[in-house]
């Protein structure tokens, strides 16, 4: 099996052949590695500095009308919330979405790289790339970097000639085709709500509400998930963002505060 090594070329410029700065885009991304005897130990220390956003809840499922994709927006570094407004649903192209879980920088960079590859495929082959193809490209890259410390747990969702498509791809190089996935520390909670309420023949509004509720419940119980619950729909004409709701507001929408009847009222005592 030929490994995808486009990402692994050496950074040392060949004498006289090219200007490293200018060629950075035309050559595949090549990475400088530190000159140590203990690469893994060094990586462990370096990771401490970066502390990727592992806490997250993302989900996606296929139903009759297409694919529904939803995610929260919290990024945490250890116990500190570094951001409440991270975009975890990445728009690869107008008919394909990717979700982000794991290292924020890893997901952002490689999704953008995937978008570039998909566009090049379109230009070279005069037709759009399939979801199967895009997820395979992504999985091959991640497999090439297996063991080196990337942290990516992503779902590629899209609509191509064969209809709706959904794949789960992770940094081990694993790639799974499926109908329902949820990724992240909040995924057990999201699965509970999602698996319970799922039916193949839902309308777009019902599916969006199911996705929103699943994310809300995950943010309620998982400390590492929160922020804004975004819901996207992928249909035959491409993706469309359906809603973005602050989960704090969602809580009071689902469980409004009922004014309780007063049983005993305290009255002011006058005089001595």
């Amino acid at each position, binding site marked *: 099996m030929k490994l995808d090594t486009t990402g692994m070329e050496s950074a040392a410029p060949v004498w006289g052949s090219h200007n490293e*700065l200018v060629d950075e885009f035309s050559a595949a991304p090549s990475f400088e590695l530190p000159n140590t005897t203990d690469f893994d130990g060094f990586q462990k220390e370096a990771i401490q500095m970066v502390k990727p956003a592992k806490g997250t809840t993302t989900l996606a499922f296929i139903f009759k009308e297409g694919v529904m994709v939803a995610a929260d927006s919290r990024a945490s570094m250890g116990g500190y919330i570094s951001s409440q407004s991270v975009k975890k649903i990445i728009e690869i192209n107008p008919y394909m979405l990717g979700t982000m879980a794991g290292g924020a*920088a890893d997901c952002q*960079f490689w999704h953008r790289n995937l978008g570039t590859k998909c566009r090049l495929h379109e230009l070279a082959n005069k037709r759009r790339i399939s979801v199967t193809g895009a997820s395979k490209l992504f999985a091959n890259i991640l497999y090439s970097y297996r063991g080196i410390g990337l942290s990516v747990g992503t779902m590629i969702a899209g609509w191509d000639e064969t209809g709706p498509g959904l794949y789960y791809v992770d940094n081990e190089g694993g790639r799974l085709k499926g109908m329902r996935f949820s990724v992240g520390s909040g995924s057990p909670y999201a699965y509970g709500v999602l698996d319970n309420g799922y039916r193949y023949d839902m309308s777009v509004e019902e599916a969006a509400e199911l996705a929103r509720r699943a994310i809300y419940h995950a943010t309620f119980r998982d400390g590492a998930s929160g922020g804004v619950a975004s819901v996207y729909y992928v249909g035959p004409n491409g993706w469309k963002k359906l809603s973005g709701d602050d989960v704090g507001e969602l809580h009071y929408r689902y469980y409004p505060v009922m004014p309780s009847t007063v049983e005993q009222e305290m009255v002011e005592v006058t005089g001595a």
Partner: protein
Amino acid sequence: MPKEQANWSPYDNNGGSCFAVAGADYCVIAADTRMSTGYNILTRDTQKSVNYKCVMASSGFQADVKALQKHLAARHLIYQHQHNKQMSCPAMAQLLSNTLYYKRFFPYYSFNVLGGLDNEGKGCVFTYDAVGSYEKVGYSSQGSGSTLIMPFLDNQLKSPSPLLLPARDAVTPLAEAEAIDLVKTVFASASERDIYTGDKLEIVVINADGIRREYMDLRKD
């Protein structure tokens, strides 16, 4: 015989804080000028921000910060030669992200905020982690004082998330003079409780008239 591990690390943390806030037609970027290592102060007067059309302020390991600034300066110059114009703020933001990620396995120990005006003249602030993940926000702080500064900013400036639909504007409703006042207050408070922040505050303001710099003294202890 047990193997001896090298106890030399290529990194050091020089401390310091930096901060940026975006307004309707301005952007304010600020950083303190103290550089420390452990409990020692190396200098009271270092420059942590660097500017083109947009200003980048960084905290962390100053050697990596300098190297990063040089790299960006070189790329910016090449861009100017190739495109006959200065890089816009969103373009610089993407370049910084890619530059940081290309050192994914030997990171620049540098926590950055980038501030400037976007193509329509509105203020924009981009915040980064050490390996290049970035996000456009209304305000952000990085560095040793950020855990002290951010909660206060959330309280004063909490802007609606850009992810909300229907979308709501993310820039702060403050006027430029109020924003500068806020910056000074924030750093004065951070210097009280963070040993690595202090000495002097460098404030850079970008608006339609151009870029200007101001300085303010902070606690020197």
